[in-house]
Every structure is written in structure tokens, then in C-alpha cells.
């Protein structure tokens, strides 16, 4: 009975952790993969790892630990991307109910489409820098690369986005 109570307590506590962090984790994974289902798969795996480590008291900063786990899980998919990924990534931007109600929405959609055409690592660097607002040093730690690599990946990614948006943007070139 005692063990049952303890287990229940742990699960209830992790439920609190889950509620505090799962949404942002799924959103990050979605931005990294462009696929909602894959994002949930990644976060399920990442949260599983967090849960086990958290139970042992090894996780001081859940958000940072989870962020790193999500990025690692996304990277580990590099060799295992689903064949349907191509189909998903080339869908029109309103496939999830987004309505292009004005030019700003159209522009966001163009940027999103362009972002999905970047190589994974450039995209990861950009998402961490411009969505998570991480410093270059923090992004490097999450990606397990050097700061110089984060700089070059971000720079190459921005260059490529500029090229893509120059060709596609209704606003005629990345400003």
C-alpha cells in the first residue's frame, strides 16, 4: 500500500511537470520537424526520458532538459525521416486550418514554407535562436556543437531564407 501511494504521488507530481512543459515542447518539436504527429512522437520520447531522470532527482531545470531532449530526439530522426515527410512538408500552409486572411498571414506562411526547405540543422539553429530566443552559446549547448557552428548554420539558414523569399514572397524579396 505504501508503495502504491508513493507511486501515485510521483505520477501526480510528474503530471504537474507535464502540464507545465508539454505544450511548449510539442511546439518546439513541431517547428523543428514541420509535422504535428512526428512532433508528438518526439515529445513523448523526450518526456519519457525526463520522467525517468526526474524521478531520480537528476533534473534541475526541466525546461532546459526537455528542450535538449526534444532537439536530440529530432536530430536522431535524421537517418529515419519518414517517407511521407516530403508530402507533409510540401502541403500548402493552410493545411491545419490557418486562413490566409491578410497579407501578414500570407507572409508568415511564405516564411514558414521557406523554413521547411532548410536542412534540419540550419532550421534547428534558427528555431532555437529566433523562437526560443537562445543565445548562440546556449543554442550551441543544446545542439552539442560549437558556437561557431551555430553562427554558420544560422547565417547560412538566413541566407537561404532570403534567397527563397526573394523568389517566392509576395512582398518581392526579403526586404
Amino acid at each position, binding site marked *: 500500500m505504501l508503495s502504491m501511494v508513493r507511486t501515485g504521488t510521483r505520477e501526480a507530481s510528474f503530471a504537474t511537470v507535464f502540464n507545465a512543459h508539454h505544450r511548449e515542447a510539442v511546439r518546439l518539436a*513541431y517547428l523543428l520537424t514541420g509535422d504535428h504527429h512526428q512532433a508528438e512522437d518526439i515529445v513523448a520520447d523526450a518526456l519519457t526520458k525526463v520522467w525517468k531522470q526526474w524521478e531520480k532527482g537528476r533534473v534541475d531545470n526541466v525546461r532546459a532538459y526537455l528542450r535538449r531532449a526534444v532537439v536530440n530526439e529530432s536530430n536522431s530522426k535524421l537517418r529515419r525521416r519518414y517517407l511521407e515527410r516530403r508530402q507533409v512538408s510540401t502541403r500548402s500552409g493552410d493545411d491545419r486550418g490557418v486562413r490566409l486572411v491578410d497579407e501578414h498571414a500570407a507572409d508568415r506562411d511564405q516564411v514558414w514554407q521557406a523554413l521547411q526547405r532548410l536542412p534540419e*540543422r540550419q532550421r534547428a539553429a534558427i528555431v532555437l535562436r529566433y523562437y526560443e530566443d537562445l543565445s548562440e552559446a546556449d543554442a550551441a549547448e543544446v545542439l552539442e556543437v560549437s558556437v561557431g557552428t551555430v553562427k554558420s548554420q544560422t547565417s547560412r539558414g538566413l541566407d537561404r531564407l532570403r534567397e527563397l523569399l526573394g523568389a517566392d514572397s509576395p512582398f518581392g524579396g526579403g526586404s
Partner: protein
Amino acid sequence: MNDELERRLRDSLQARAGDVEPTPELYARVEAHVNRNKRWTLVLSGVGVAAAIAVAAAVLPSLLDRGTVEPPIVGPGTPLPTDAPTDPTPSPTDGPGDAVFSEHAVLAGDDRIWLADVRTGQEIAELVDFGGPENESEIVAVEVRPGSTLEDLTVVYVLQGEGAFTFGWIAYDGTDATYAPFPDTHQPSADLVGDALPIPAFDPTGAHLAWVEPLRGEDNQAPTLRTIGWSNGPGTGDIATDNAGFTLDEIPIEHAPSDFVVDDWVWTQQAEGTRRGHLLVTGALQAWRVPIEEQSDGALARGSDPIELITVPERAVIDLAATVGELTYTLVVGGSTSQDAEDLNLTLLISGPDGEDEGMVPDVSTADPSGIWMTVYGEGYAIGLGGFTEVFVPGGRYRFDASYADFVR
């Protein structure tokens, strides 16, 4: 200019992220994962043999001097220690693929493939850059043809994109590199099941290339070993050696969708123009030894012995490699020392005629074991996953920002 692009980027990312809501089932899925991993650990743990393995690893004489002093990890381009032993005793060879170790590797990542000096990290030459606004493919494997040198290098690459895999090859003459896709007849099938990666391997002579294909719509059928000949490029024009396929009946298909990777290929016997050997194939955390023969006309045939399932007690095998007549490298996860599923307990077992030792491995405690790969050449090996690769050569351990690598051999 950048500020405006960055503003649009932030705006787009925030808007997209704001549209995403996790499904209500996510918590239940995490719970199920935790429970499943506990069961998985339990299966791997087993009983009885772990102690024997631990004792054997502790008392057997070291085959290699790795692990006694861990050299520093250095990044590419960083000056390297020069006092490392670099003149080990040559081992017996069988063909061009068995030198003591290689100082050079072909690395891939970020849409690029390049040739580098392992110890200095210096990029010797860029072999190909697929990057560009229109590129939607990514490199998922590289394989160096045995017998290659810095002045005559041949590399096979695998691209994933457009909903399929494409094989291509690079020829580098020490100055210029050219690349081209394989002819359609030598490409992997477009009907591969799930996300199975057709990662190929050369035979030690460089005359054959092989990969495994589990095909979509063929439930309960065995995967196929496909082979092509190689003569100045993919294909020989000889029907005896081109496009031979063999059904691997003993390998169950129920693991698909899964990668079936041809990890290595060794010839163990040679007589009267024929060769006998085997391929090492891994997939779904299992490994098989597939006997194969090369007949006197160069044609391949399935060996007469049955396919052998390779197991390591209490561990799951995720990659295999072998050097002829010498050492077998087995990369495993699990074991009784870990009661924790995400503590992968990644271990490299190096076994040979004199016993078994453990090699150094990268810290991949948070990784998906199915994404880890290894390649071995002589006394050097590389292990990686996702965005990094660690290369281990005698006296040195080096980390590269590369997704895949193979030694110049």
C-alpha cells in the same frame, strides 16, 4: 535587412507554434512509453550471464590499448596531440581494406560531403555540396570504396528526398571531384517499406556493393539483399555480377518498417578463384551474419550455410563490424548494469582470438539507439548519431560536426 527578415521569422515561428495544441492523449502515451521501456530493460537484463560478461571484460588481457588513458576530445581544426602512438604493428591483410588504420575520413553533414584529416580536422577537399535553395534532399549515408586513396577516391552516398532514396557516387582525383547518381537500374527500389534506409556496403575488394530492401506490400515476406557490381563506377555491364538479388528468408520482415543496414562485408576464405565470406546485417536491434560466396566468374551467390542470428546475452546489438580474421566490433545497448531504459549503456565489445575488451564510446545517453551507427577500419572506428561523429584512432579521439563518416580505405 537582416532585422526585417528576423522580424518576419519570429512572427512566422510564433504564429505557427501558437497554432499547435498537443493532443489530450499525450500524457497517456508518455506513461505507456515509461512502462514499455521498463519492460524492455527487464528483457535485456535477463539473469545469469551478465556477471560472467563483466568478469570476462575485467580479467581478459586487453586486445587494444584503448581506454586506459582517455585522450582529449578535440574539435575539427584544433591542433592535435602529436605524442600519440601512431606506429602500431601491422595486422594481416586480405585485400585493400585492411590497413592498420586510416588517418583520413570522408564526412557528411549539412548537405556537404568532404574529405578530412582525422587528427587535425583539416578539410582536405570538399567533395560535393548539395546545399541550395531548391535542395530538399539530405545525405543519410556515405561509404568509401575500398582501395581508395587521397588521389583516387570513390565514395557512394545515399540521399533521401523526393519521397525516395537515391544512390550516387563521387570520384575524386586529388584535385577535382565529380559526382553523379547511379543509373536507374542500380537505384534502390522505390517501394521500400516505411522509413527503411537502404544503407549499402562494399565488399573488401570494392567489386560489389550490397544493401537490404524490405519492400512495401510484402508483409510476411523476407527482405531482399540486392547487389550490384562495380567497375569504374556502379555496374559492370556483365549480367553475372549486376543486379543480383537474394531473399533473406531467415530474417523476419515483421520488424519493418525498420532499417536493415549492411554494416560490413568480409571474405574469410579464398581458393581457386572463389571467395567465401559473410555480410553483417543489423536491423530492429538484431544482427545477422549472412553467408555469401563469389564464384570464379565474379557472380555472387548465397552461401550454403544458414543465416546466423548474432546475439549478445542481455544486450541488444545495434551495429556490427569486423576485420578479417582479427577483431569483431559489436556495438550494443543494455545490460544488467543499467536498470534505466534511457541510460542506454552503450558498449563497444571488441572480440578476437585472445578474448574480449571494451572500446571507448561517445556519451549518447539520451539518444535513440536505432539512430546510432558505427564504422570500423583497421584499428580505427567511428561512432555517431544525428549531428555528430566521434572518430577513435590509436592514441586519439576526435569529434566532428558530421552526421556520417567513413574511413578512406
